[in-house]
């Protein structure tokens, strides 16, 4: 499964679409950035409600390939810019973290 398939699976709209498409390795759902730092893996999708640019820094450092912002939270412009600079796919969905995680799990492992 590729990043480009993700919006369809988690009912998301792309807010930053400049990225290099690649295979999704897994996912990590957390709103604590240190927790993401400690446990997210490269090629993971970060599933979170933390819609600010620090999430981009963390995703970039751990090598996450995409971020799904849940609960329809609005995404500020500087976060979109940061995501573009890092080449990280950024999308927003009205689903919550549980629903997004479930659908991603099903798509990858189900």
């Amino acid at each position, binding site marked *: 499964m590729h990043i480009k398939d993700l919006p369809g699976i988690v009912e998301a709209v792309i807010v930053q679409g400049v990225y290099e498409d690649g295979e999704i390795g897994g996912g990590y759902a957390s*709103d*604590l*950035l*240190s*927790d993401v*730092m*400690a446990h997210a893996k*490269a090629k993971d999708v970060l599933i*979170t409600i*933390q819609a*600010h*640019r*620090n*999430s981009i*820094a*963390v995703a*970039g*450092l*751990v*090598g996450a390939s995409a971020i799904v912002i849940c609960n329809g939270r609005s995404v500020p412009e*500087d976060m979109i810019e940061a995501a573009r600079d*890092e080449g990280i796919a950024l999308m927003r969905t009205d689903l919550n973290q549980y629903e997004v995680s479930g659908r991603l799990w099903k798509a990858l492992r189900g």
Partner: protein
Amino acid sequence: MATVPISPDSSPGVVLELLYSLRVKDAMTKSVVTASPSADLRSVQILMRDHAITGIPITEEGRLLGIVSIGDIIGALDSGTMDRQASTVMTNSVVSLDEEMPLSFAVTYFDRYKYGRFPVIDTTGRLAGIITASDILRRLLIALNEEIGRMEQRIAGRQAASEGPVPAMELSFGTTPLDFSRAGNISTRFKKALVERSCPPLVARKAAIASYELELNQVIHSTGGIMRMRIFDDTIEITAQDEGPGIPDVDRAMQEGYSTANEWVRSLGFGAGMGLPNVKRVADGFSISSEMGKGTSVKAVITWGKN
């Protein structure tokens, strides 16, 4: 118009680091010759002549209203309107730089807008200085001289085989308390420097985690500090040194889940009490010392070879 013959994208690493670590305020001219909006163009022209400059910011109580360039003066001489007030001919929508921006921004602006100078605005919105391409080149030349001096010392140190290993590369940047808009930038630069040196991904990841947690600790808790990365032949050493306030109980700070961060910081997803434990977990060597009123110093060492 004058541009800066240096690319903020594809220059040698040392130059790039300088462009990103130096700020606009480090290079700008602070004493700015200004005129009031009611000044007539004749007096503006005299200011230009006496100070040998080609543009005068028009200000009112420190606030930048516009700029009168030598082109505007020539136009007025041509049409015989030198008695008019500066406010009637000045350019109103002035492109300005923020004094805290990295110098790389200024270089990009000169290329993009082709102006000869940019006014510089401080954090309160007042005119803090003015910057020209030659200001940037002068500051870069000074910084490059210092850097080359250090490189020569390093080479000399290596030749003399002095005690203690000499790092192959050293990067250091200052952090700003509670500046979450830039938090993580230092770690991102460290990681990029490692990746450029073909660091194995797992090692770069460990260094990035250690550096990010220490950087965020400085941003959240300290009154400001310095993050430094030194790359040796077989290790990467990341040190975080701040100027206070110090940690009252280091043992507790090392416990997972213990945090003194406030609600606002926690709402951003920080302050989970995992920072220092995360650093210790990924590091092959770890030390911390803290003194109240003096500051905290943390060192994390990551070995290249280990997986």
